Each structure stands twice: as structure tokens, then as C-alpha cells.
């Protein structure tokens, strides 16, 4: 007999641990290519273990925060796997949805959609969820539907779906301060607003942010919120900066370990700025944090979500911090490398000065290409494998800017990495600008796309042969990825003559 009046859920592309490899989750931003959809989905987002109520062992971290806030407020709330919603129809009064990219409008989903002409699987799966018998029945029973998460803004572009599925409220931003009141109103059947955007002045204090009650995907724990760099395309930099105290981080690590998640994945927009003064790293705070993680996790892997390249360069040059953390704390036991997301965004000093002058700090933005190259060299030497993004179509971009980006990619050839191009999606301070669409693609963009593809395929194959997915249990995943890479290579070879003609023109 279900007891949960509030059910939080999302579709399979989000409710997954991606075989314990977060970067595989990025396959869920694309359509099924070269593989049947079921197989693609298994590769990108296999099902998670659940209990008899359908509660997943691991769930997206942001949803865990909302779940925790509601539980602390005394509600019967739980994250439920999308395949188990039907078990809770009798008790459910509110269905809360979270997603990073509901409708595949985020990068890189929108780009893959544009290039292939096929809907990415995250959009397909979310639509299937909303049109599932369980969700339809819930709505017929009068359940209120509230949608949030980083992808909330996308609902404003899909008003017909909003209406069709009977979503009652869409809320964008950090919700810890307001979500309890919203739920109280919904349960009391009071009128709800249609849309809420929580601005920075209503950002929760550290005390208002709850500790997660159950495990997060792959042991992800937040160590800070916000970022001081102020890049104009970024929504996260709009959030007030706050550092999560070590004792709270420790509590969340313990929640994950207790659930059987072996590793610790530190989440921040720039892990190396934990405890920092502006963009000046705080080595003591970082070493203490990593020692804490190592002590708690034993020999379990430690990972970072994001870094800024200028911090990598500065921290290593001034403090030897990268090599110290990697050699002394992170790369022990079986861990041979660490993957991390970084932003190159552009190889043009001119464009860097306009849209992201703070990203190069403390170095001048005019030095951005050198910073990128130096940081890549440092990471290569220290067994850090960056998955780097490049943004094509930033407002104000010129042909020369794109050429400079292509030149930088050439310089990064010797460094183990993946480089992923993204078409500009209006977000952050630039969210009122126009999208980068197919009609805007020029030969120089295609040149960058091909260079990044060749670079990433080369290094992906190298990593697969040397150290990625080495465990015997991961053999099927590894095989499928190898097949996929071969398929991409084959398709690109076929297209090459046409593309080369076009590039000449």
C-alpha cells in the first residue's frame, strides 16, 4: 500500500547511473545512431536498481535535494523510478518532475538533432513518460504536476505539451526556499502560479539546503554552488556563490557509501575553486576535502565534475596542486585516470574578451589559447582526461573567430581528451539572443566539427584500448561503444568528399 503523497520522477535517460560512467550519459543527448533505440538506451541509460516500492538506489542529485527538503518538512515524498509510478496512484497527490533537458533544446542535444534530423532520445523518452498510462491516470485522478530542474526553461518553448499534459506549474531555479510552500498550496488545492523563476535574491542559504537522504547517481555530491567568472552564456554563474562546509559534504558521502555507491564525485562548476578567494585557489581547503573523501571512500574512485582551464594552469604553476592531488590522493589503488568536463568554448582571444573575460582570470583573456594548451598539457601529464566543449555560433562570432578555434584544436592534438562542439543555445545572460541554427552553419564551422570529431575518435579509441571500461562486466558496453565509434567513422568517411568540396567553396 503506497504512502507517498508526493512522487518525484523523471525519464530513464536521467534515472540511470549510466553504467557507473557519467560521460556515457551524454549518449542520451543524441538520437539512436547505428544501433536500435533499445540498445542505444541501454548503452546510454540502463535501468537502476530499485526496491519493492520502485525507489531507485541512485537518483539525480538535484531531485534528491528536493526530496530531502520535502521529507524534512514532514511530507511523505519519494523519488520513484518511472517504471513504478503506477504503484503510487492511490496515494499520489503531486507528481514532481525534474530534468536536465526535457525537450532536447539544451546543448548538445539540439545540435545532434539539427545535424541528424532525428529527435534525441532524451526528448523521446520524456514524451513517452508523460504519455504513459500511469501519468495519464494520475492526471485524471487530479494529481498536480510540477516541473522543475535545470531544463525547466524549455517548457516555455513547448506550451502545447504543457497544456496537453496538464502541467500545473513550472519552476526554474534554486527551489529550496519556496518548494515547501508550493507543495502546501498544491495539497490544499489552492491556486498555483503557472511559472516561477527563482532569482538570485531568493537563493537558499547553506542552512536552508538539506542533506540528501538517499544516494545520488555515481556518488555525486555538491561542494559549492555558483561560479565567480561571469561568462555570459552560462546560467550557473548567475547563482550566488556558496561553499558547502566539509561536514555536510561528509554526511552526503556517507549516505552514498551506505547505499553501496563506492566512489565520490565532487560537483562544482570549478572544483579547484572550492574555498577560494575569488579565483585564487585555496590549496589547504582542497587537500583537506580530498583527504576527507579518501578517508571515507577507502580505495573507491574520486572524481571531479567540472574544472576551469585557467584554474588548472594557475593551481599547478603556483602550488603544484594538480599533481599533488592526483598523485597523493586520487590516483591510488585501481584508479588510473579521471575524466572531467572543461570549457574551451572558443580559440579566439577577441571573442573570449567579449563573452568570457573572467574565464581566463587571473590571466588576461587575450592569452586564452595559450591557457587552454598549457592546461591540457598539465592534465595529460596528470592522467586527467578532459571532455571539452566548444561553442559555435556565439553572438558576435566572426569567421576569423571560428578559424582561430580550428587552429587551437590542431594544437591540442597531442593531449588525451574529447572535444565536443556545441551550437549556441541562448542561456545565462545571453538567453534573450537567437539560437544558432542550421542555416547559420558555414564551411569554417564544418571544419571545426570535423576536427573535433577526428580528435575525439582518435583519443576515444586509445582510451578504450588502454584503460576505459576495463572490468569484465563492462565488456558488452565497451563492445557497443567500439561499434558506435566505427559506425561514426564510416559515416564521416562517406560524407568526406562532399564536405571537402563544400569546404573548398
Amino acid at each position, binding site marked *: 500500500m503506497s504512502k507517498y503523497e508526493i512522487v518525484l520522477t523523471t525519464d530513464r535517460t536521467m534515472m540511470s547511473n549510466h553504467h557507473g560512467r557519467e560521460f556515457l550519459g551524454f549518449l542520451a543527448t543524441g538520437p539512436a545512431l547505428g544501433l536500435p533505440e533499445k540498445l542505444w538506451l541501454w548503452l546510454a541509460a540502463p535501468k537502476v536498481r530499485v526496491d519493492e516500492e520502485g525507489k531507485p538506489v541512485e537518483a539525480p542529485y538535484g531531485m534528491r535535494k528536493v526530496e530531502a527538503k520535502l521529507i524534512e518538512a514532514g511530507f511523505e515524498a519519494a523519488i520513484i523510478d518511472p517504471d513504478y509510478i503506477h504503484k503510487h496512484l492511490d496515494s499520489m497527490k503531486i507528481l514532481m518532475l525534474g530534468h536536465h533537458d526535457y525537450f532536447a533544446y539544451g546543448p548538445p542535444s539540439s545540435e545532434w538533432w539539427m545535424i541528424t534530423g532525428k529527435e534525441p532520445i532524451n526528448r523521446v523518452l520524456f514524451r513517452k513518460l508523460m504519455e504513459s498510462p500511469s501519468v495519464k491516470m494520475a492526471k485524471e485522478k487530479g494529481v498536480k504536476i510540477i516541473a522543475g530542474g535545470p531544463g525547466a526553461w524549455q517548457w*516555455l518553448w513547448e*506550451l502545447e505539451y504543457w497544456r496537453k499534459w496538464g502541467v500545473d506549474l513550472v519552476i526554474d531555479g534554486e527551489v529550496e526556499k519556496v518548494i515547501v510552500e508550493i507543495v502546501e498550496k498544491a495539497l490544499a488545492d489552492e491556486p498555483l502560479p503557472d*511559472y516561477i523563476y527563482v532569482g538570485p535574491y531568493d537563493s537558499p542559504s547553506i542552512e536552508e539546503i538539506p542533506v540528501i537522504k538517499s544516494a545520488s547517481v555515481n556518488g555525486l555530491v555538491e561542494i559549492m554552488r555558483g561560479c565567480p567568472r561571469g561568462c555570459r552564456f552560462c546560467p550557473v554563474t548567475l547563482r550566488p556563490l556558496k561553499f558547502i562546509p566539509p561536514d555536510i559534504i561528509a554526511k552526503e558521502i556517507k549516505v552514498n557509501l551506505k547505499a553501496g555507491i563506492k566512489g565520490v564525485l565532487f560537483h562544482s562548476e570549478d572544483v579547484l575553486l572550492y574555498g577560494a578567494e575569488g579565483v585564487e585557489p585555496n590549496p589547504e581547503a582542497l587537500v583537506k576535502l580530498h583527504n576527507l573523501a579518501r578517508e571515507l571512500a577507502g580505495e573507491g574512485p574520486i572524481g571531479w565534475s567540472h574544472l576551469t582551464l585557467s584554474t588548472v594552469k594557475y593551481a599547478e604553476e603556483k602550488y603544484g596542486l594538480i599533481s599533488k592531488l592526483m598523485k597523493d590522493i586520487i590516483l591510488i589503488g585501481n584508479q588510473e585516470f579521471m575524466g572531467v568536463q572543461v570549457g574551451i568554448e572558443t580559440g579566439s582571444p577577441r571573442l573570449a574578451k567579449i563573452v568570457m573575460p573572467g574565464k581566463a582570470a587571473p590571466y588576461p583573456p587575450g592569452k586564452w589559447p595559450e591557457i587552454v594548451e598549457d592546461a591540457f598539457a598539465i592534465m595529460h601529464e596528470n592522467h586527467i582526461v578532459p571532455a571539452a566543449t566548444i561553442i559555435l555560433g556565439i553572438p558576435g562570432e566572426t569567421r576569423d573567430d571560428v578559424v582561430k578555434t580550428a587552429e587551437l584544436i590542431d594544437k591540442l592534438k597531442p593531449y588525451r581528451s574529447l572535444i565536443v562542439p556545441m551550437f549556441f543555445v541562448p542561456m545565462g545572460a545571453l538567453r534573450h539572443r537567437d539560437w544558432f541554427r542550421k542555416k547559420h552553419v558555414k564551411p569554417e564551422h564544418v571544419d571545426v566539427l570535423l576536427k573535433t570529431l577526428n580528435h575525439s575518435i582518435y583519443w576515444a579509441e586509445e582510451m578504450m584500448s588502454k584503460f576505459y571500461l576495463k572490468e569484465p562486466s563492462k565488456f558488452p558496453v565497451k563492445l557497443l561503444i567500439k561499434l558506435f565509434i566505427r559506425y561514426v567513422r564510416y559515416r564521416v568517411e562517406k560524407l568526406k568528399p562532399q564536405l571537402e568540396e563544400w569546404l573548398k567553396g
Partner: protein
Amino acid sequence: MSILEDRAFHVVLVSKGNLDSKKVLDKLSSYSALGFRKFIIHVLTNDERPLYLEKLRNIVFENIAYTLIIEYHKLSRGGLNELLNRLENNPYEVIEA
């Protein structure tokens, strides 16, 4: 006082046709100069819910600084009066845009 309404400025937006987003955004700016950082926009419209939000999209996407809460009201004289009575003790302004 509810958290949602605490220190909020209420904008009663009467929308009869195409919406002048700039007018609304300028209003928000002017009230933010008085210290308001949260705006509850009561939209009175004949457009269907939530399709009316298409006209407010620009306002939402131009804003990064303030908390915005958008509420729907069916456009009618009675409805407007009822809303204004409810807002009697709150700071508000009626805008036709």
C-alpha cells in the same frame, strides 16, 4: 506572510493583444530601483492557459536578476476588481501592455 509573496511587488498586467515586453521590463527595472527583487505578475488575458505565456517569453528570458511569479487570470472587469481588492495592502501597479 508567505515566502512567495514576501517583499514582492505585484504587477497587474492587462493583456489585450500583443504584449509590449519592453514596457513591462522597464517597469520591473524602475521598481527594482526601489529595492524590489521579486515580482508577481498577474496576467489578465483572454488567451488560453498556458498558451498566454508565449507573449511573456521575452520578459522571462530578458530577466536574470529578479524572482518572477506569473499568475493567470481570465480577463474581465469583475476579475480585475476582485484582484485589486485582494492586493489592497500590497504594493502594485496596473499596466496595460
